[in-house]
């Protein structure tokens, strides 16, 4: 059995939904990981994300994904070996606070499963709360608009 679904990546489709996964699940974007040591290093995080119901997509080069969490290999200094070190960040500044607060911007190797689980839960929780607040505000506007 394998957690991977396609070749060297973990993506299950070629499409790139804007902002969220096809099912409305939080989205994890993988930037430039294919074929690097960081891809192997990222596997535990990707698996936990899938277990927790996240959508995982490989981001095409040059595309800034509107994802809740992004992963990319840490840029190497000249002559430095690829150690598989990962950078993690969120394009959403509010969610990025959680990444910084848990001190996982540069992921340790091996990845701490417990910390990654906490991170993904916190990001999903914040995202859901933000969507709930947005939906409530939109609903309020619609209702008043309909009456008006």
């Amino acid at each position, binding site marked *: 059995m394998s957690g991977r679904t396609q070749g060297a990546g973990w993506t299950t489709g070629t499409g790139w939904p804007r902002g969220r996964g096809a099912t409305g699940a939080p989205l994890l974007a993988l930037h430039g990981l294919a074929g690097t040591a960081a891809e192997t290093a990222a*596997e535990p995080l990707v698996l*936990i994300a899938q277990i927790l119901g996240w959508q995982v997509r490989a981001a095409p080069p040059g595309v800034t994904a509107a994802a809740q969490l992004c992963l990319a290999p840490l840029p190497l200094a000249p002559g430095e070996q690829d150690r598989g070190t990962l950078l993690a960040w969120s394009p959403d500044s509010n969610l990025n606070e959680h990444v910084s607060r848990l001190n996982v911007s540069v992921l340790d190797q091996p990845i701490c499963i*417990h910390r990654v689980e906490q991170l993904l839960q916190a990001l999903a929780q914040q995202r859901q709360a933000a969507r709930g607040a947005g939906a409530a505000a939109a609903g309020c506007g619609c209702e008043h608009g309909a009456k008006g």
Partner: protein
Amino acid sequence: MMRTIADDTDDLAAAGDARRRAPPLGFDAAPDHGADVAAFGQLAAGLAAVTPPAGTRDFGTPDFGNPDQAASIARQVADMAQGLAALADRLVGEGTVNAAQTAEADCIAFLEAQFRIRRLRARHLVGLSLGEPAWDILLDLAVAHFWRRETSVTSLCIAADVPSTTALRWINSMTREGLIVRRPCLRDGRRSFLAIAPDTYHAMLALAADALRAADKVRQRYQRSAA
């Protein structure tokens, strides 16, 4: 704080008796045993049909002077023994009967014991890597479900007793296959935990009930042999 099976030992001791007295789960009603009764009837008829050889006063003291008669009796007895063995196997194999007769707590105690036995393997069979993390995961989740314990991904990785990435691959695959489900946290609905799927839980209970009954039968057989 993360709780493991080991943490629940005291809870089990304290609450086990109360749970043990609880009525069994709502499994299917006991199946119709008409077919089994009929099978027993056939066997009884077969026994009655074994006519004592000529020259004997009763069945208990046959005259085996005639080789053909002796061979015939031997064949009939062997056939009946096979029939009885097959019938016994079928009765042991009826999970619904066993589950209905066995309390949920007894089943869970058995499953937890299995989990602990698997940890003991590492102590007594040093250097052997026997694996099977999916079974460890199911055992842990079944016990967690009984105790209403919320299981995190991290906790399940520990229960699997294999390297983390291997455990995660198994958990991911079992989640995709529907053996494991995500459940919202009871205290904080925005968080989620992992749980055993209801169908899988009932299958585990039925398995445990079957296993307990089979173990009883084996023990009785050994006791009879020793007597």
